[in-house]
């Protein structure tokens, strides 16, 4: 049941064959049983139960009436821990915000709540979104549920998994904190304590930085999740975890309440188990927000459902030749080829196109990202909120101590680099140059679309999900450069892209393919993606065996 799509779950709630309370308990149960994935860092089960209770009452009142019920009434979701949630810890997986509880909801979170969504928990990530493996978190790494051997299915006896006993007393203020503490102490050592089950570090990373959300969707903990996408942070883990991951057009979804990494590149990301599901969630969250001056204010975007009968005959699909990059695994290349063939066989025009400047995207990204990071992180001084170092000799010393202790090495490194790039003497050489290159990258896409291409088709990642030990053998920046190679240029251009599972590799791990659309033509892109999804008939990960 937990492999159902959001749409299917909703129709069961509607026809009464499933109750919102039951669904919520199932999801909580799954979340607890898959705890070693380390996907959820702050569970909000007691809040979820209350929300589900309300939803159950609403459904029993409204029955089959589709008009009065809210669009997500009773559907469990998970939110990445860099979206502000009122009264619920929002840590960005950083020591800096370890005890930070925001006094407001991010606009996108609020819009989901308004439609009746049930928040199951906050999901793990790379600290402040700086990473591509969800391994650099104060809560420890996220594990990819695919090909993962859960220890608790064999070693932990029945009963201890009783969710109500583990997470009793819904009123307990320590609920969130206690569980978060548990994750931290249990996980780094889990592999070691069960040497027989998992060769140390042989499990797969979830991708990042929204790895917790992707793993949660894949593992059946929730029916939809929020990630954020600055250079691929939603699409990369979605691809590795075999779920659909949408990066909307810049300006479609409000960033108000999303704790920023790179304001000019990032958008809230949407993850679910089908293209229709991400479309539903996008419809609910999209639109003008007076709190975010960069949101769309005109009518270039209209919410609508995707059609069921899709014809791709008149479409022009572009295949960017630069995406045939070194390091592309044969499995991924094969999936890409087969997908292109499918479109061609269905009558679409499929041609090779060129995006000559995309190769500079990563370098350009490093400069722009570091600059905005240096700026955005300047507010964490330990005065109004966040970690404050125990150093009172002077204000400056207190800042230095708070920031040194509060940020990990990756964050500090980027701040350092960003401040260097922004120095008066370097500004022209780095920041301005990077902005010019960004414009060239954007122009590449514009030109291709102007030439008549409707949607571009590319791989999402070079390979399937890498092993943890391999992934952590190189530093964060090296991994970013190779992980974000296919996803990153899209953020530079601000256009929409979606990754859809295209099949499994010989290892039995999912492969994602990416569709890239034109600015604010998210619906056209999603329609193409849905057609592809219909052809592939990808089988979602099923962890129902954990329930026994």
């Amino acid at each position, binding site marked *: 049941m937990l492999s159902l799509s959001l749409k299917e779950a909703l129709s069961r709630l509607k026809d009464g064959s499933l109750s919102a309370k039951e669904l919520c308990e199932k999801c909580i149960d799954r979340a607890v049983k898959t705890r070693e994935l380390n996907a959820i860092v702050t569970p909000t089960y007691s809040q979820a139960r209350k929300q589900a209770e309300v939803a159950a009452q609403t459904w029993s009142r409204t029955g089959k009436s589709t008009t009065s019920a809210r669009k997500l009434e009773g559907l469990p979701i998970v939110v990445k821990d860099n*979206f*502000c949630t009122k009264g619920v810890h*929002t840590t*960005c997986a950083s020591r800096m*915000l370890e005890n*930070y509880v*925001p*006094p*407001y909801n*991010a606009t996108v979170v609020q819009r989901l709540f308004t439609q009746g969504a049930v928040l199951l928990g906050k999901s793990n990530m790379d600290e402040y979104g700086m990473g591509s493996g969800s391994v650099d978190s104060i809560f420890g790494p996220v594990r990819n549920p695919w090909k993962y051997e859960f220890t608790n299915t064999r070693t932990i006896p029945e009963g201890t998994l009783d969710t109500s006993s583990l997470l009793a007393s819904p009123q307990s203020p320590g609920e969130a904190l206690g569980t978060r503490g548990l994750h931290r102490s249990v996980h780094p050592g889990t592999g070691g304590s069960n040497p027989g089950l998992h060769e140390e570090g042989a499990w797969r990373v979830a991708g990042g930085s929204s790895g917790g959300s992707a793993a949660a969707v894949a593992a059946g903990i929730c029916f939809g999740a929020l990630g954020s996408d600055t250079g691929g942070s939603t699409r990369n883990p979605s691809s590795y975890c075999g779920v659909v991951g949408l990066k909307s057009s810049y300006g479609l979804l409000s*960033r*108000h*309440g*999303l*704790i*920023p990494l*790179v*304001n*000019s590149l990032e958008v809230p990301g949407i993850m679910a188990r089908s293209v229709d599901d991400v479309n539903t969630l996008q419809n609910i969250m999209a639109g003008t927000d*007076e*709190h*975010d*001056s*960069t949101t769309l204010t*005109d009518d270039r975007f209209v919410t609508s459902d995707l059609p069921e009968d899709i014809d791709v005959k008149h479409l022009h699909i572009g295949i960017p030749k630069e995406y045939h990059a070194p390091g592309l695994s044969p499995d991924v290349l094969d999936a890409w080829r087969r997908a292109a063939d499918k479109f061609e066989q269905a009558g679409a025009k499929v041609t090779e196109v060129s995006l000559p400047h995309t190769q500079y995207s990563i370098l350009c990204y490093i400069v722009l990202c570091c*600059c*905005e990071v*240096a*700026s955005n*992180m*300047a*507010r964490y*001084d330990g*005065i*109004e*909120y966040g970690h404050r170092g125990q150093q*009172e000799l002077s*204000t*400056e010393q207190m*800042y230095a101590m708070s920031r040194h202790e509060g940020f990990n090495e990756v964050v500090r490194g980027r701040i350092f680099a960003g*401040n260097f790039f*922004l*120095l*008066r003497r370097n*500004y022209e050489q780095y*920041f301005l140059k990077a902005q010019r290159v960004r414009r060239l990258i954007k122009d590449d896409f514009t030109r291709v679309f102007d030439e008549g291409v409707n949607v571009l088709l590319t791989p999402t990642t070079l390979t399937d999900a890498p092993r943890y030990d391999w992934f952590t053998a190189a530093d964060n920046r090296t991994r970013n450069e190779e992980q974000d190679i296919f996803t990153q240029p899209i953020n530079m251009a601000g256009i929409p892209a979606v990754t859809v599972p295209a099949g499994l590799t010989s290892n039995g791990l999912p492969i994602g393919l990416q569709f890239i659309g034109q600015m604010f033509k998210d619906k056209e892109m999603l329609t193409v993606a849905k057609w592809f999804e219909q052809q592939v008939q990808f089988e979602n990960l099923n962890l129902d065996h954990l329930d026994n």
Partner: protein
Amino acid sequence: MAAPMRVRAPRLCQICKCFPSSFLRCSSSTTSKRKWEGVVGLEIHAQILAESKLFSGACTKFGGTTNNQVSLFDAAFPGTLPAINRRCVEAGGQTALALNCQINKVSKFDRKHYFYADLPAGYQITQLRQPLAKQGSLRFPILRGDISPKCPLDYMTVRLEQIQLEQDSGKSIHNEDDKQSLIDLNRAGVGLMEIITAPDLSSGLESVSFLRELIGILTTVSTCNCKMEEGSFRVDANISVHQPGEPLGTRVEVKNLNSIRSVKNAIDYEIRRQKQQLQQGKQIINDTRSWDVSAGLTLPMRDKEIELDYRFMPEPNLPPLHVYDNTSIPAGLNPSQIVNIDVLQQQLPPLPAQQKQDLVTTYGLPELYAHRIEVKPGMRDYYKKVVEARPKDPIYIAVRMMGELLGEMNKKKLEFNDITCSPETFGEACDLRKLNAMTTREFEKVVEDLLENPPSETHLNRIRKRLLMGSRDSDEQLESICRQVLEDFEQGSHLKNAKLKRNPEKLLIFLAQQATKKSVEVRFVHARTVFKKLLNKE
């Protein structure tokens, strides 16, 4: 930097044929061997008069309880974003128009980074590279203490480099005893207009003359209340000295200029100090100094010793700011959601320079009087109301208002909007004074009464009564003065006297005038009555 443009051609005064004093000063200073000249540029931070802050909905009232006017954005809570306040853009636009600036149809915001406890985000949102407006100018009179109303005013023009919108910071309160700093964020995020002048000024006097004109304009267009004591109008001065024709010298920034007097004294002090340093063969260090009011010195500011690199970066969360004019409004945009320069221009009230000119042409006032009436808030309107009923006495009324009225108001620390006395009543008092129905001292008393709230007419009533009934005590004295005048007149044997005798009415006026010259106590009307009586007897 281009050489300062001075519109200050020395010319002879049209009335008394004297040289304006600036010309004298220039020519006399050529006698000294090493001639140093001060070069001053001002940076003014004017808080925008608006209900809410530049990028948040928090209130902007001055003097609220600590930290009670702070939105999440003002405290830089993670995830909050700026949304610009339209009123602030309009205020900036109106100010720019009033200061003859070019308004940029597209302006942009930048982040200026520095760590300070009362700057919660670690950066200030400002406009460095593409400000709201550029290249303005302001013409203003230089107001010397010894200026005569007979001379036209000596004007100069200062160029304005730019006007930018930016956020104000919070306030730090340092407690040295327990080594603590307390932060108040009520001011954090309040909209500021930073107005930057070219280095066209050369002295404290010129600088404060400029500031007075600027304050007049900002208060007229209601974009800033210019209350220096509340910090809503703050001035920093960049000061250097050089020898004319030479490149500009090393400049020093002086901060903490909290009053007009401080601006004047600090600039004059700093110019003197730099001259002395150079004359002693020392170098000027490019530093930031603060004005110590009590000591009358500028002192280096300790925390500004290190030269800061503000690492400017475009603000990514604010799209470029567009302002339109009637020809450029794109179709489909709601007029209530855009800022239209042509509409702002229409709404602009008459500016002080125009008002002064009107006072000069309408009432024949000397420029100096027109200036003084214009610069005092509310004075022009009051003046006009008083003069309306007495079109023959505009200069007399002006003198009474600048003299006794302002004098008494200053003693009581009153402004024109505090005054409840009607212009008609004040005008009547002026009439009586002009008729010599009271002495200067009595007039002062009357004015003092009228400034009470509500106005007291005790003194005025006594004068009115005296005028109607005549005063018995002084009758004898008056009669004796009149007899004296008559005697003098009879003794004189001019042709004029004979002529006057043939016209009794003219004779009465002449005699009464003579009597008023004998003593200030003598009122014309009374003297005339007495003469009529005396002449009839004869």
